[in-house]
C-alpha cells in the first residue's frame, strides 16, 4: 500500500509520442483523456502529463498496440516502454 502511494506521487517518468506509429485506436485518449487525445486526423496528441502518475503513464503506454508512446525513467535514463531488445543474433 505504501509502495503504491509512493508511485502515485512519483514524477520520474517522461513521455514521448511517436505519431508516425499511431493508428488512431485511441486507447490512450480513453484511459487518460486529459493527457492524450486524438486530433482531427485521428492521431495521438500529447498535452503534457498533468496530474497523471508515473504508473498511470506506463500502464497507458502499454495499452497502445503500436508502441507509439515511449516512457523513460528520467532518474535512471532507462526506457521502460517499449522494451529495448538486444539485437537478434545473426
Amino acid at each position, binding site marked *: 500500500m505504501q509502495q503504491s502511494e509512493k508511485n502515485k506521487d512519483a514524477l520520474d517518468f517522461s513521455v514521448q509520442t511517436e505519431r508516425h506509429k499511431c493508428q488512431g485506436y485511441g486507447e490512450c485518449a480513453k484511459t487518460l483523456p486529459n493527457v492524450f487525445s486524438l486530433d482531427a486526423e485521428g492521431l495521438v496528441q500529447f498535452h503534457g502529463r498533468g496530474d497523471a502518475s508515473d504508473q498511470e503513464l506506463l500502464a497507458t503506454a502499454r495499452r497502445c498496440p*503500436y508502441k507509439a508512446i515511449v516512457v523513460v525513467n528520467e532518474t535512471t535514463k532507462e526506457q521502460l516502454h517499449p522494451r529495448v531488445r538486444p539485437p537478434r543474433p545473426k
Partner: protein
Amino acid sequence: MEQHIAMMTDGTTRAEASVEVGPLIQPDRIHSRLYSDPAIFAREVEMLWERVWVYVGHESEIPNAGDYVRRQIATRPILVLRGRDGKVCVFHNRCRHRGNMLCHRDRGNAQVIRCPYHGWTFSSEGGLLEPTFDDAYEEGLESADFALAQVPRVDNYRGLIFASLSPTGISLDEHLGQAKMFLDLIFDRSPVGEVELSAGINKVRYRGNWKMLPENSLEGGYHGFFIHKFAFDLADSRSGRDRMDFHDDAVWYLPGGHMVEDFRPVGIKQQKTDANIAYMKQLEERYGAERAAHLAPGKAPIIFIFPNLMYVQTHFRHLQPLGVDETLVVYQPAMLKGVPEEINQTILRQHEGSFGPAGFLASDDLEILERTQNAIKTDGNPWLFLGRGIHREATFDDGTSVGHSMDENHIRGMWAHYTRIMSGDMAPANGGAA
C-alpha cells in the same frame, strides 16, 4: 454435414480433379460439363488460373503511391498496390499472421496496410511494420520473416497490369503476341496514346460459368439480332444507321487464346460534330490519315485477352470466376486522354445506355448466360454446337484464323487453346494449323 463438406471440397480445392477435358472439346462442339462440373473448375484453377497471365488492373486506377485495388485471380484474393517507389506490386491479400483477408475495401490509398483482425501493419512495399503487443514474442519478430507474399510475376502492356501466380512461364509479351496490335487500336484512339479507367466502375455477379462471358462478348453480331433487338432497333432509329452495315467485320482467333471482332473493314459514317471534326484532326496529325481512319469512333475492335480481359465498345471489362457457376464482371469505361471533352462524354453516355446498371446490353447478356447455366443442368444432348463458318475458316501456319462476321472460328480457337492449357502445354501458339 458430410455432404456439405464434400460439396465444398469439390468446388474450391484441387483435390481429386484429375479431369481430362480433351474428349469434351470436339472441333465443332463442346460438352456442357465444361461449364457445370465443379471438378473441372478445380482443375482450371490449378492448370489455368494459377499459371497463365491474368489481367488484374490498369495503371490509371492506382496513380499515386499507396493506391490499391482489391482483385481476385480466380478464387485467390490479391491486392494490386503502388509502393512509395512508384512500382506496382501484387500481393496475396492475406495477413502473414493468421491468414485474415488483409484488405477488404475495393480500392483506396493506404500508406500503411493494417490487418483488421489483430492490427498487424505492413508497409506499401509489403514489409512487416508492427506486430501488435509484441512483447509476447521474446526476441521480437524479423520484418523480413513476415513480409507479405508477392505474386511472383507482374508485367504490364500500355498500363494494363497482368500477374501470374506461376514463377515461370512465357513472358507477357509472348502471351499477348499479335493481340498487342489490336490493343494498340484502343490506346491510340487517344492522341497521346493513353486511356484512363477513371470514370467509375460497375460490377455485376452472374450465376453462370466464366467461359460463357468471352464467348458471348465476342459474338455480339450474331446474338445481337435476337437478344439485343430492342436496343439495336432503338439505336438504329436514332442514328439513321442500319445494323446490317456492321456485318462487314472480321473475327480473328489469335495465338494465346485471344479473340478479336475487327471493325476496320466496316464503313461507318461519322457524325460531323465540331468535337468529332477536331478529334479526327488530332488523330490524323498524330498518326497520319490512314491509321486515323482505323481509330475513328465506331471502329474500335472488340477484344478478348485470354483468360479474363475484354474491351467492348466503351469499356474494359474483366471477369473473376468465383466458382463453377458464379462469375464477377467488372465494367470500367475507358476515357481517352487528350481528346475534346465531348468525345469522352459520348463514350460515357453510350456506356450507361448499354452497360450501366440500367443499360440494355449487359442485362440482356447476363440474363441469357444465367438461363443457359440453368438449362444445361437438364438431361438430353449435352453438346453445345459451335460450327458456324467451319467450312470457310482460314487458318494460318501460326494458328491464327480469320472468319466472317458471325462465324465462330475465334471461339473454336479459344477452346483449342483452353484444351492445350488444361493439358499443361503453356506455349502461346498452336505450332501449326489445327
